[in-house]
């Protein structure tokens, strides 16, 4: 049975004029429009964030959009949400679009929780009556009953996020587009986000979900679209899209450097697998500890800066997730410069292919930076092939003992 479409994207392209994101002064514009010289319009460098993207999404479908930073994922969402216009092409959406590009947009720190629910709900497109109808649910879901009349600047970051997400979760959109909400918040918060997204689809709403978290994408999406340099590189079953994306990255390398992006306050400049002593490794082995090293360039101070390292198997199973702040007590990232982090993983994982994710985050900020690279954990030198091929996740050093039957 063919279901009705609820999102259609027809040959959409989006051009940014580089330098346009920077403020210009009136004088510069006046001068260039009078002289009509090189500074004006056409000769400025351009960037095509999207190039002829077409896709359709059915009602009740959860579509995952994956791809590296700058592939055009966020731009696509912004066009669907009508925050910005396409340069060419057209997008069509049916029904109310709820865009969750950032949790807590429009929240004001001086206002109380109650006031912010109404403010945030309204800017997200809810009518006052709807907000009133859902008010108790929103507050209960966020678990902040006691702090309703406290200014939210006194909230913990967890309370803030729960309230913000709770407002958004009670929108009743027909089409939901979500960008990197999982980049913030704790595990419990992320679990709720994912749960709510699955609910959305069960209720017949259409969900378009952008994330770097391939495990989450694999878990909740039926279909995946891999965007690469502004074009659709693959559109199909979600597992297949993730496989292809990972294979094409060609970064089956234990060390990668990333191009600088001056717009980011904090950025990963290099990441890799190394020995616990720090030397980068081409072929880490499952029976030896290895370290995940990351170099971050801090351009401006970000409150609550944290680094998350996670390992996901090729099937989307998350086997390890650690935050720097879980155990590190000392100073981190509080002044500009290149900081380096390293976390040692003990030899417990089975040999095989892994996706390593390194996310730079802060509970108070929107998405900062995230990169993934794939690597292979090699078997121990004398292991038999038959032992390597077993389908298992952990392979800690175990010790067998045999007690023969006593002869009597």
């Amino acid at each position: 049975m063919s279901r009705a479409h609820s999102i259609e994207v027809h040959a959409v392209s989006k051009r940014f004029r580089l330098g346009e994101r920077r403020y210009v002064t009136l004088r510069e514009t006046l001068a260039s429009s009078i002289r009509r010289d090189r500074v004006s319009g056409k000769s400025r460098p351009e960037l095509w964030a999207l190039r002829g993207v077409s896709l359709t999404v059915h009602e009740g479908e959860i579509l995952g959009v994956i791809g590296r930073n700058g592939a055009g994922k966020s731009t696509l969402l912004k066009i669907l949400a009508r925050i910005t216009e396409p340069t060419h092409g057209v997008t069509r959406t049916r029904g109310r679009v709820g865009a969750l590009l950032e949790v807590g947009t429009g929240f004001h720190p001086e206002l109380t929780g109650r006031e912010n629910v109404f403010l945030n709900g309204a800017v997200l497109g809810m009518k006052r009556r709807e907000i009133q109808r859902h008010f108790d649910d929103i507050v209960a879901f966020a678990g902040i009953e006691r702090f309703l009349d406290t200014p939210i600047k006194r909230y913990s970051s967890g309370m803030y996020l729960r309230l913000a997400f709770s407002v958004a979760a009670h929108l009743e959109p027909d089409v939901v587009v979500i960008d990197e909400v999982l980049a913030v918040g704790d595990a419990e918060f992320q679990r709720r986000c994912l749960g709510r997204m699955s609910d959305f689809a069960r209720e017949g709403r259409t969900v378009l979900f952008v994330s770097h978290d391939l495990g989450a994408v694999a878990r909740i999406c039926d279909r995946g679209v891999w965007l690469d340099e502004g074009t659709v590189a693959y559109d199909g079953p979600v597992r297949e899209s993730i496989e292809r994306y990972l294979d094409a990255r060609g970064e089956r390398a234990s060390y990668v450097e990333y191009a600088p992006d001056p717009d980011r306050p904090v950025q990963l400049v290099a990441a890799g697998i190394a020995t616990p002593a720090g030397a980068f490794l081409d072929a880490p082995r499952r029976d030896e500890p290895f370290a995940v090293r990351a170099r971050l360039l801090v351009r401006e101070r970000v409150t609550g800066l944290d680094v998350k390292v996670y390992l996901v198997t090729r099937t989307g199973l998350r086997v390890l997730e650690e935050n720097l702040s879980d155990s590190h007590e000392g100073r981190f990232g509080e002044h500009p410069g290149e900081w380096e982090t390293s976390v040692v993983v003990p030899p417990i994982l089975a040999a095989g292919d892994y996706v390593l994710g390194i996310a730079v985050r802060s509970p108070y900020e929107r998405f900062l930076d995230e990169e993934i690279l794939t690597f292979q954990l090699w078997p121990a030198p004398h292991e038999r092939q038959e032992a390597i091929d077993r389908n298992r996740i952990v392979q800690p050093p175990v010790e067998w003992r045999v007690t023969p039957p006593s002869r009597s």
Partner: protein
Amino acid sequence: MHPSSAERVPDARHSPWIENRPSRKWIPRLDLLELWASREITLVLALRNVKTRYKQTLLGVAWTILQPLTAVAIFSLVFGRLALVPSEGVPYPVFVFTGLAVWLYFASASNLASESLAQHRELVTKIYFPRLHAPIASVLPGLIDLSISLLAVGVFMVIYDVAPTPAIVLLPVWILAAPVVALAVGVWLAALNVQYRDVRNALTFLLQVWFFATPVVYGSSLLEGRWSFLLALNPMAGLIEGFRWSLIGAPPPGMWALGSFAMGAVVLVSGLTYFGLVQRRFADLV
């Protein structure tokens, strides 16, 4: 714990398609129907401005009245006592207070409007709503201050024994016209400020020059005759003299006022047109 939204299964099949396509270069896109349908956004944004203003301030609403009172005292001394500026037969403090109340409303409302988009990056880049709500919401909160100031002018009228004339029936018209004039200028400034950072500096300067070119601390009779065209080009001149006529019984504004009102309309329509032309680029620029 489960959100109750499940009770309504959306039936988008009957909803109309919403399209997003490139707009044509010289056709402004304003969509006033959508603006009206989402008018609650204007209200919550305006409320946010009102509420945040007085939170954690020691004197709260007293600030509203302290600023114009100080200015009234200074101008009364400098222009009323020392320079003997004409005040159309009304005691100078009452006369200047009326002008200042309206001017201060205009200055703060247009200032707030100019920052309404540029200062709220997340509203512009992370959600969709008709952008015009932001400048409209900026000119509303000041009306509270304006009303308080006008009440204080009433107290001054009692003190200085100034009786209102029948023209007071027109006072509501001027009170409604004030936010329209502020919006006319505010829409221009909001759109320009997203694109050009120096609008902020220019505005301070512009308001200073404009203040002295407007009959605030002096009466319009000072400019009538050779300089009437200055009054006719200035939307604020007609507004302030209108307030004075209706509230404190000053002589009605001259024929130049028609020009002043027309100018207000021109600024508003051109501002809305400009806003409609450039708003599609706001999210890419802020």
